[in-house]
């Protein structure tokens, strides 16, 4: 740096200059303005953080409730009906029971779930496998809600070893796999009890009982209507339904019914 530059630096770096007297009021006003501008930003930051916390909370709640619901559904679905009855009304051992039934249930309130139904009659090795699938179609406002197929894999054998009285085993399992269901100790409930507790199976022959069940059905299930396919005879439908398949509406009532049923038995 040159000599004169040093002098310039020395003189100018310590130099002072007059400033307008009203400058402070301008600066003060500017700072106030800046504060006012900052306030809504802070408010928004706080609001948005609160909102995000709320959203996360609600999301978690929804997730938890959905998770629980799906667990409940799984639980309902795994309530299997084991009928030890050999379907003596319509079938004999070795005879094919394969029938696909479609029931349209016009339901304005709830949908139906047909639980996995497994009929196992075989106390000995199976000779033939009978598959019986029943499709229940539920519709509400022209929309099909739930269609659940109940598939029955039946190993029919040795029908003589089975009591004439139909008995149904209810098995609750957290695992939907049927192989896990087999062999689990189950509750035994009589057919009458099923008919009482599941008045959907109201197409029983006895008129008095039918009326009774129908009345109960109407009371409990109000708008459920069952339309049977014309091509099928009553016995074709009733027999497997009556003994092998549990129709479980997908609402709490039926779930609680099942639980009640089990508790009652216990």
């Amino acid at each position: 740096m040159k000599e004169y530059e040093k002098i310039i630096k020395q003189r100018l770096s310590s130099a002072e200059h007059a400033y307008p007297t009203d400058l402070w009021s301008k600066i003060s006003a500017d700072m106030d303005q800046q504060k006012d501008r900052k306030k809504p930003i802070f408010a928004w930051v706080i609001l948005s953080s609160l909102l995000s916390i709320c959203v996360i909370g609600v999301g978690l709640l929804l997730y938890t409730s959905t998770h629980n619901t799906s667990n409940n559904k799984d639980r309902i679905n795994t309530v299997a009906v084991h009928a030890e009855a050999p379907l003596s009304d319509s079938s004999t051992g070795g005879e094919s029971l394969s029938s696909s039934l479609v029931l349209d249930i016009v339901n304005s309130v709830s949908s139906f779930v047909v639980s996995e139904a497994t009929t196992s009659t075989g106390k000995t090795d199976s000779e033939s496998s009978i598959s019986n699938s029943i499709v229940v179609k539920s519709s509400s406002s022209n929309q099909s809600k739930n269609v659940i197929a109940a598939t029955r894999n039946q190993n029919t054998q040795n029908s003589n070893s089975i009591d004439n009285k139909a008995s149904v085993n209810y098995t609750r399992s957290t695992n939907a796999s049927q192989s896990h269901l087999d062999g689990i100790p189950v509750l035994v409930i009589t057919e009458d009890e099923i008919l009482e507790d599941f008045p959907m199976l109201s197409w029983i022959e006895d008129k008095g009982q039918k009326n009774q069940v129908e009345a109960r059905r109407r009371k409990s299930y109000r708008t459920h209507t069952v339309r049977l396919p014309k091509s099928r005879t009553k016995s074709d439908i009733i027999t497997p339904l009556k003994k092998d398949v549990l129709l479980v509406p997908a609402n709490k009532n039926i779930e609680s019914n099942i639980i009640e049923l089990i508790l009652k038995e216990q």
Partner: protein
Amino acid sequence: MSPLKPYSISVLELIEACLSDDRTAQKELFELYAPTMMALALRYCRDSHEAEDVLQEGFVKIFSNLYQYSGKGNFEGWMKKIFINIALKNKTKKSYTNEIPGLDPYMETSVMPTIIDSLSEDEITQVIDSMPEGYKRVFNLYVIEGYSHKEIGELLKIGESTSRSQLVKARKMMQSKLLNSQKLAV
């Protein structure tokens, strides 16, 4: 020029009070440094109006960013950097394209200290101010603020070599102008 008042508390105490949003303390700090910063702003600005704008913007920025000052370095130096940045930013917003420097022949520098001594600070500032914008900036930053060419290059977003060449030209012009002013005075 507003006279400096005797301050009862130290600058650091004043800064602490400013941080707690004490408006009186802020005013005190402003009054303490405004004259120096005004002089600085005038060196980088075209006129006093522009310098006032820089001063206003600078102090608002300083008060709102005071928490960034660690308290370790020179507070005045920290403030000066902010003011220089604002002044240079404001300069880049405006164009000075029509300024073409007319260089006078290089003169002997031995007489320069005598000439400078005879001039007041305002006159020296005026001489610097009369230079083209680029020269003025580089001269101010290098000679008065003590920035290196690298720092100047980063600050003005120009190359180091450009900064050097600008300084050489600024020096020539400065000497020429000082000599002219001396001649006029005589």
